């Protein structure tokens, strides 16, 4: 391991000043499941780890029908998918957060870490984008909100400025007539990086679509929204033909690379398949 220091922050203000004073190589430590390995393998230069797990605002999940869901950025995943309100109202968040790593990873890994690691294949990212989650950020200039769909600027890169970090993730209250779903394709059953992942969110009124959001992961330099699908679906009644059109739009929007996990052709195909499947599930949930 490279030489580094460890500091435990107990308030947002303390974390901001530690990060600010620490400069470029100061890093937020949440669950450490990406960061500790990256630091050890020297994929990242780290001189200071700022442990944010002892800041009260960063741990825990709360829900109110008026203000919605707030997930502390460093809350371990098992507390996210194990939360009763998340289970009841946000199945796509459960679907994504319960497949990240195995038990030991889920005891530590967080949504904030998945978000800020900003891998194009990060599994929770497309679930959060589809449901229009908002990242609440604190920094030297105060606090600001950035929708997760606008958070990423490149592989491993995001909008966070020096001294900034994510405090929590906010999702609007659940409304009846809406539903979300998330799936990924991996060659094994568990413990693998997605070849493609896909999050969807649908709002239906009297059988017709009033809102549709589809996000795809591992098909571009960052996870992407597919606005073309929203245009196809909004105002229409869902049927097989229109869902096929949405799936084609997903394949078209995907601009993947070729690597050991999958070819361009396979990834484009999977983008369509997962869009179709998750839309069907989201529609069922919206109607139930």
């Amino acid at each position, binding site marked *: *391991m*490279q*030489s*580094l*220091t*460890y500091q*435990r922050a107990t308030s947002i203000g303390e974390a901001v000043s530690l990060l600010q004073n620490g400069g470029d190589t100061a890093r937020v*430590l949440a*669950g*450490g*499941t990406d960061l*500790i*390995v990256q630091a*050890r*393998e020297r994929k990242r230069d780290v001189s200071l*780890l700022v*442990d944010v*797990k002892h800041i009260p605002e960063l741990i825990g999940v709360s829900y109110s029908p008026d203000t919605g869901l707030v997930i502390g950025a460093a809350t*371990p995943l*098992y507390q996210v998918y194990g939360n009763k309100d998340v289970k009841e109202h946000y199945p796509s968040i459960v679907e994504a957060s319960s497949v990240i*790593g*195995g*038990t*030991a*990873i889920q*005891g*530590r890994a967080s949504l904030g870490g998945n978000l800020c690691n900003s891998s194009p294949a990060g599994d929770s990212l497309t679930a959060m984008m589809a449901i229009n989650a908002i990242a609440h950020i604190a920094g030297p200039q105060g606090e600001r909100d950035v929708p997760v769909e606008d958070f990423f600027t490149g592989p491993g890169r995001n909008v966070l400025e020096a001294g900034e970090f994510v405090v929590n993730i906010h999702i609007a209250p659940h409304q009846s007539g809406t539903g979300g779903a998330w799936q990924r394709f991996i060659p094994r*059953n*568990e*413990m693998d990086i997605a070849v493609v992942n896909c999050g969807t969110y649908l709002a239906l009124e009297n059988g017709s679509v009033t809102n549709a959001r589809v996000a795809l992961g591992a098909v571009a330099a960052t996870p992407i929204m597919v606005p073309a699908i929203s245009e196809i679906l909004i105002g229409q009644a869902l049927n097989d033909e229109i869902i096929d059109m949405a799936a084609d739009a997903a394949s078209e929007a995907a601009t993947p690379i070729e690597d050991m996990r999958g070819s361009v052709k396979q990834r484009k195909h999977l983008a369509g398949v997962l869009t179709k499947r998750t839309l069907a599930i989201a529609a069922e949930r919206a109607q139930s």
Partner: protein
Amino acid sequence: MAKIVLNTIINGENREFLADERDSLLEALRERLGLMGAKEGCNNGNCGACAVIMDGRLVNSCCVMAAEIEGAELNTIEGLADADSLHPLQEAFLENAALQCGICTPGFLMASKALLDENPDPSEEEIRWWLAGNLCRCTGYDKIIRAVQDSAQRINSSS
């Protein structure tokens, strides 16, 4: 290198010890405390051979900084047996031949303990999902699953 003093409870005992600030928990356990039960398989979170229980949750100690355990409570494989009598999981692993080389075994035992603490009567599917982050190159897993089922039965019938 900067040394730090850490205070923790390990297997029920208060421990105060010196570690290097850049040590992982796995390094601190093995190199500072001489607790050699947790194994280094991959050192990147994938194999589970280094698994220990921290504040009641299963974690891979190679993905935890030693500095993070200040004030925490740890359970490691060294504390699983009760003096001379093996834990029912250890007995069941032996009797079901759920190990060969044994490198993965401390991790599997701690992961299985964490499972049974939370869910005393898991289905085979639940066991397989829970243990998906523990790799074994020798046994082919079936015997491990059987051992966990077997010990769940023993624990439940004795309580």
